[in-house]
């Protein structure tokens, strides 16, 4: 589908062993490209252990600004002998493989259609560094030097980045600089010239940042005014709370007293984490928890409670590869269904689906507004790819005029003026009742419960009273459709076929549509941003005969939600499923859609 690598359009993949400090080398390389003004995509494939396992890092440089992985490897840096075979296999024909030739491996590295470049990295480092840890670490920095030579990287940028990173550690700076030079010089001396595709300074990254979704989410929670983060550590969501805590320390800590305007509690498990969030939400604070699939499973009971007792709560589910413990360091979108209907009984939850770190920031703020407006748990459903990988995105923006929407909360004054307060009366006809906060006013008291209750908040086992409550909850669900963010739609009335997709599939879909358009296939596109679906999703469904539903799970869960909660025929929705744990790429979609279209023609 693509035309092979060219200047500012190539993919470098680095195979390494975790625990060897390769992360900083890889980030350095990616940042150099970014600072040269070339859009970059970085994907990290790391193992679910701490040290000694294979790990890969993939950088796509791409002048056109496509943000999905390319699905192709032009340069492989193979630092892990254990995976040489596999790593060699995935290089595109005509590509390059760099390996540590301190120990030559002609027998294994035997492909004839690629160029194999040996650099004696270990030897170079052993000759130049004495400490054993430094020898390991500097090998990695040295390959950055090799790549700098081969790809024509701007050495000023490299230097500036190093200087910035090691501002306060002069010794480290020198060591790193030396390692870079070792690699750079070796390459310049032993390989003639650079590769046929190179990095050239550009201007496509102005007003952009590099950020991962979890950091952006943590930041969003700070900006939303959250004061309690309660959580239990789990990959790949852990860095959300790390970020929240760090930003609270930065922005909310009184330097004199050392006291902070917020609280982060590491709960004993996920049940407890959500219990804390519900307690805080009931008590009038903005509170959230972050977790991944297994946590969502454990939170089922409390999620149903939050729905039925109508308590605001924000959850972030950073999806990973299921089922069960699955592959904790691989990505998937397979919690969609379980988030939507978590808990026994007739229960439904409002979901938001960010597609990138920028949306993680804005949607985490929206989530708090929605949770308080609708008095219900709201789950921001993201994934490992968005959450833990470094993404390029436009600068985050904040509107200082923003004030949080706290929903229908009665003040002491309101209560003072009222004859009597009843918790679950639908005064406004939108299915949303007024609530009160503990401690506000004696008239505000009510008894929150997950057992049968009537409009007045009293316990009931009466069929009619029960129906009034659950029917109103449906009405609230309808109201929610008007509050949640609208989908992103790219639409031309000429076309009767389309794509519906979700979350981190977005960039692959964007790229695939362009490639398909190149070959005359035009597909409209809707990206769902929230559940329940609103009117614009329905319009899109109505307007098309054939819609590819692109998502990253085995069981077509988004398609399932559409069948359950919108008006559409099964045959209209063609599932396009990618679920091997790696992020989606455009080629997969282009191939799948072309195959489907040719089947159509053949029939």
């Amino acid at each position: 589908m693509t035309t092979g690598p060219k200047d500012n359009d190539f993919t470098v993949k680095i195979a390494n062993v975790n625990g060897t400090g390769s992360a900083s080398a890889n980030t350095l390389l990616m940042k150099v490209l970014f600072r040269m003004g070339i859009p970059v995509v970085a994907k990290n494939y790391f193992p679910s252990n701490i040290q000694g396992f294979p790990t890969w890092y993939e950088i796509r440089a791409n002048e056109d600004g496509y943000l999905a992985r390319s699905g192709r490897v032009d340069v492989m840096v193979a630092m892990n002998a254990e995976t040489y075979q596999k790593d060699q296999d995935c290089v595109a024909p005509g590509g390059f493989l760099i390996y540590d030739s301190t120990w030559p491996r002609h027998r294994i590295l035997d492909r004839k259609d690629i160029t194999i470049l040996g650099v004696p990295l270990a030897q170079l480092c052993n000759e130049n560094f004495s400490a054993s840890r430094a020898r390991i670490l500097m090998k990695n920095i040295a390959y950055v030097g090799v790549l700098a030579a081969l790809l024509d990287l701007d050495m000023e940028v490299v230097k500036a980045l190093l200087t910035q990173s090691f501002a306060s550690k002069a010794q480290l700076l020198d060591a790193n600089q030396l390692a870079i030079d070792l690699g750079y010089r070796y390459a310049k001396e032993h390989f003639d010239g650079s590769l046929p595709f190179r990095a050239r300074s550009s201007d496509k990254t102005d007003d952009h940042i590099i950020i991962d979704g979890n950091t952006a989410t943590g930041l969003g929670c700070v900006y939303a005014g959250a004061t309690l983060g309660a959580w239990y550590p789990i990959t790949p969501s852990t860095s959300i709370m790390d970020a929240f805590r760090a930003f609270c320390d930065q922005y909310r800590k009184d330097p004199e007293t050392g006291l902070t305007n917020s609280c982060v509690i590491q709960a004993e498990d996920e049940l407890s984490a959500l219990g804390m969030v519900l307690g805080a939400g009931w008590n009038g604070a903005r509170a959230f928890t972050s977790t991944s699939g297994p946590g969502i499973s454990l939170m089922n009971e409390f999620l149903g409670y939050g729905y039925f007792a109508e308590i605001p709560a924000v959850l972030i589910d950073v999806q990973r590869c299921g089922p069960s413990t699955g592959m904790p360091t691989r990505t998937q979108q397979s919690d969609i269904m379980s988030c939507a209907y978590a808990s026994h009984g007739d229960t439904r939850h409002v979901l938001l689906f960010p597609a990138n770190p920028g949306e993680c920031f804005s949607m985490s703020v929206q989530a708090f507004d929605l949770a308080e407006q609708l008095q219900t748990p709201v789950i921001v459903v993201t994934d490992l790819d968005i959450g833990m990988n470094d993404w390029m995105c436009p600068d985050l923006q904040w509107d200082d005029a923003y004030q949080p929407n706290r929903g229908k909360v009665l003040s002491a004054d309101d209560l003072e003026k009222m004859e009597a307060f009843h918790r679950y009366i639908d005064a406004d006809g939108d299915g949303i009742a007024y609530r009160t906060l503990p401690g506000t006013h004696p008239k505000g008291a009510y008894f929150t419960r997950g057992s049968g209750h009537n409009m007045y908040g009293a316990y009931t086992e009466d069929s009619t009273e029960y129906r009034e409550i659950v029917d109103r909850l449906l009405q609230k669900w309808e109201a929610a459709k008007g509050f949640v963010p609208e989908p992103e739609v790219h639409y031309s009335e000429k076309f009767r076929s389309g794509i519906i997709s979700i979350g981190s599939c977005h960039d692959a879909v964007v790229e695939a549509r362009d490639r398909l358009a190149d070959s005359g296939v035009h597909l409209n596109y809707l990206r769902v941003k929230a559940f329940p679906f609103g009117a614009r999703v329905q319009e899109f469904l109505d307007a098309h005969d054939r819609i590819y539903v692109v998502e990253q799970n085995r069981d077509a869960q988004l398609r399932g939600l559409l069948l359950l909660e919108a008006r559409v025929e099964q045959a209209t929705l063609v599932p396009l499923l990618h679920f091997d744990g790696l992020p989606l790429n455009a080629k997969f979609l282009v191939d799948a859609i072309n195959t489907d279209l040719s089947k159509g023609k053949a029939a």
Partner: protein
Amino acid sequence: MTYIRRPNVVHPDMPSNELGLTARDYEGGISSLCAGCGHDSVTSAFVQALFELSIPPHRVAKLSGIGCSSKTPAYFASASHGFNSVHGRMPSVATGANSVNRDLHYIGVSGDGDSLSIGFGQLCHAIRRNVNMLYVIDNNGVYGLTKGQFSASADVGTTAKKGEVNIQPPIDACMTALTMGCTFVARSFSGDKEQLVPLLKAGLVHKGFALIDVVSPCVTFNDHLGSTKSYDFTRQHYHPAIHADFIAPAGEITASYRDGDTISVVLHDGSRVVLRKVDEQYDPTDRIASYAFLQKHAAAQEIVTGLLFIDDAKPDMHETHKVVEQPLNSIDFDTLCPGQSALAELQNRFR
């Protein structure tokens, strides 16, 4: 049903507290429990304790799990907010609620099933965090609401109504609390209001986690001969180790105690708990000794009661987490949100 509020007719001679409220103002809905259930006595002790402490009812938050015991918050202090959570998970809800508004009084009411089986982990971790709350276990040795199965507090040898003998050793809430570092550990009996009320008061004022394990007989499923949680058995094996008097900050010690027989613990707000030893050897400020005392008497089937241990100095959850004094739920949004200029600056880090 709980929406039937008691008629609020106040007898003109009814005593009123500092807030001008009468005990009636601390009552709640009509109980739906069985006539004679121990839990109802605990409820009325709550009414009295809250009344005597002159706590504004709306400044109290009542939380519970699921069970007959967990229903009782609906039966006192109807002007307080209540949170009847899910089974065994009240401690986490209370922790979260407390974390964002440290200025309310938090009362947790639970059962032995709710706290010692399904909720055991949460209870222990709330104790470990020293969440500032009063946590009462209405302990009847059975699951009342699900009709009489043995709970984790059922003693070895106790019999079920239909004769089944329990062989599984019990979990002792007080020993557990001591082991988890609890800062206020007491045991009492629903039938002994005189002992229970001052304990509730002291527990309400104590800064940190105050656990009171109240033996509270289930008349329907566990009050027969052979039960070790019946009214009769409890009365016969009752061993008050220490008696606690609660004295408000302003109050004076009116009663005079002989030296050596009493220990007086000053609480953070200036109020005092005066502990009168019934048992000579007892020292309620010595965690290890208290534990040994409990173990020894448990082996002799004696139900040791009173304020078994107190330590008012340990940091509570807010101190541990270094959180500001002001309730988090009342901090201005503008104080919390760093704003656009901070965001713009921050992002230089991300290039």
